[in-house]
């Protein structure tokens, strides 16, 4: 009998699941990504987060044009260029070519809506801790995901693989909205067919 006494607590902890996977990551960590390549066998392509940034978009363009060594201390032009970069960052554009594409990419979860305990709407971000302490990612590095069916056991900052169809059109709430606002809220949406826990290479 004493031997049996071990069984229940052991089995209980196995049932409840051990510590969550989030403990392994630190703020700012990104998930190791696969090389971008069209997958021959399946109808989706695995992409990198960088692919969501339109080619040629460079928020720091103005800053690069300045030779910092030639400026006086406290130069107005340096500050202006920095401000411009921050503004460009805030109004990050999306790459329209992704509209309707079926893709697969890894990221961290920020849950928005739940029914019972299952997540029905969440944001996918490229690095750990995006909702706390660190500056937010630009709009083209956030995907608003609508799972096809509610996802069980999904918690804040869980790492997942998501497969789904991207949508780059603006949300319907913006029809008739002003132009500045439209700029500010352009972003990616996704109808996700499959969401699976991220199992990456050993860290």
């Amino acid at each position, binding site marked *: 009998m004493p031997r049996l006494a071990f069984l229940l607590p052991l089995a209980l902890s196995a049932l409840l699941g051990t510590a969550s996977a989030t403990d392994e990551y630190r703020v700012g960590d990104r998930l190791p990504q696969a090389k971008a390549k069209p997958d021959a066998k399946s109808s989706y392509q695995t992409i990198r987060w960088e692919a969501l940034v339109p080619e040629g978009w460079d928020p720091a363009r103005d800053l690069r044009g300045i030779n910092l060594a030639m400026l006086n201390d406290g130069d107005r032009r340096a500050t202006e260029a920095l401000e411009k970069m921050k503004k460009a960052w805030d109004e990050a554009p999306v790459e329209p070519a992704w509209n309707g594409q079926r893709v697969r990419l890894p990221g961290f979860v920020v849950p928005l*809506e739940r029914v019972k305990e299952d997540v029905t709407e969440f944001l996918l971000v490229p690095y750990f801790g995006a909702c706390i302490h660190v500056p937010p990612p630009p709009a083209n590095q956030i995907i608003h995901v609508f799972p096809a069916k509610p996802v069980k056991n999904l918690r804040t900052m869980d790492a997942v693989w998501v497969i789904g169809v991207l949508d780059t059109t*603006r949300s319907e709430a913006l029809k008739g909205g002003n132009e500045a606002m439209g700029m500010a*809220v352009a972003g990616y949406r996704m109808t996700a067919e499959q969401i699976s826990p991220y199992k990456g290479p050993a860290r």
Partner: protein
Amino acid sequence: MSHWLLLAAKSAWNRRLTLGLTVLAVALSVVLLLGVERVRSDAREGFTQSVSGTDLIVGARTSAVQLMLYTVFRIGEATNNMRWDAYQELARHPLIAWTIPLSLGDSHRGFPVLGTTPGYFEHFRYGDSRPLAFAAGKPFAELFDAVLGAQVAEALGYRMGDRIVLSHGIGGIGLPEHADKPFVVSGILQRTGTPVDRTVHVSLAAIQAIHLDWQGGAPVPGFSIPAQYVRKFDLTPKEITAALIGLHSRAAVFKMQRYIDDYKGEPLMAVLPGVALDELWRVVGVAENTLLAVSGMVVLVGLTGLVAVVLAGLNERRREIAVLRAVGASPRGIFLLLTTEGLLVTALGCVLGILLLLALTVAAAPLAQSRYGVALHPRVISLAELRLLALVIAVGVLASLIPGYRAYRLSLADGLAPRL
């Protein structure tokens, strides 16, 4: 196999008193184990259902969990307020689709009073994005109108047009009352199964009006402004407790959160309800797991008792077993007989436990709802509970192998004339 079951049942019936008590012990431990799991899952579900469609909760700087607890669940109290003009400025931000100001701090016979705007009834969502619906009446239009949650109306027996008096502060009896400015019930909401049911809703201007002649949390002695003259004064709120925010695009939530956290006018914070809820579960999870482990131990104690009773009965039954052997039962049959008995007791205990728990849930549901705001759903069994129950039965069978094995050995050694 089936004749062993019959034999085991008949033999057990002979010792029904001791075995009956063992069944009861197992049943009670099962009630505890499943009860903990049931309250846990129902409380979680209740919390998750209480807020939907809200992108950010804004308030004075405190902990994210605390801000969410008092704004959405009316648990605990605010450490500080935010200024009305700061709220106004935020509400004009182009990313924001709607805002709901919340002013807490008063109560009515133990139910929290919420000062807000009619926009609350339009924008607030719960459960699966469901809007609030009126069972009777409409949102407050007059200054001293109040809209009651379903449970407030039911528990206190209020109808449309009744007059109610608010108290200053939250909690016990003997709170100072705003007796000179009674409110009229203008609407009653339909049941939602969320803290809204326990809330009395009034306008922000009314909150301002009932505190006009108050200073430092008490009425100014010998001075009062009659209800009919309060409109002569400026009833614009000076501060609110917190605000709920909805955005045009949910993907902009980090940008807005950053903007509010960096707001220069006064120290504010914004939290995502989903994230704060997860944080709460992480904290509460430790206590939940401890409770579950303790109730698991209690089940073990119950099953140990079962083994002890069957083992103790074994000595009295050596003759019975000898007779069975004499009429042709194999030692394996004896083993089966004893193990089946253990399984029967465990299974009966589980069934009795489920029934007891069902009765208990039905009986305790109204109290849990009104006292703690936790909606317990009477049900026979859920999937998670079924898994726990399967575990209990598996351990019960394992434990029953012990008396089975012992009887097997004895039946081999004893022969027909056991020395007693």
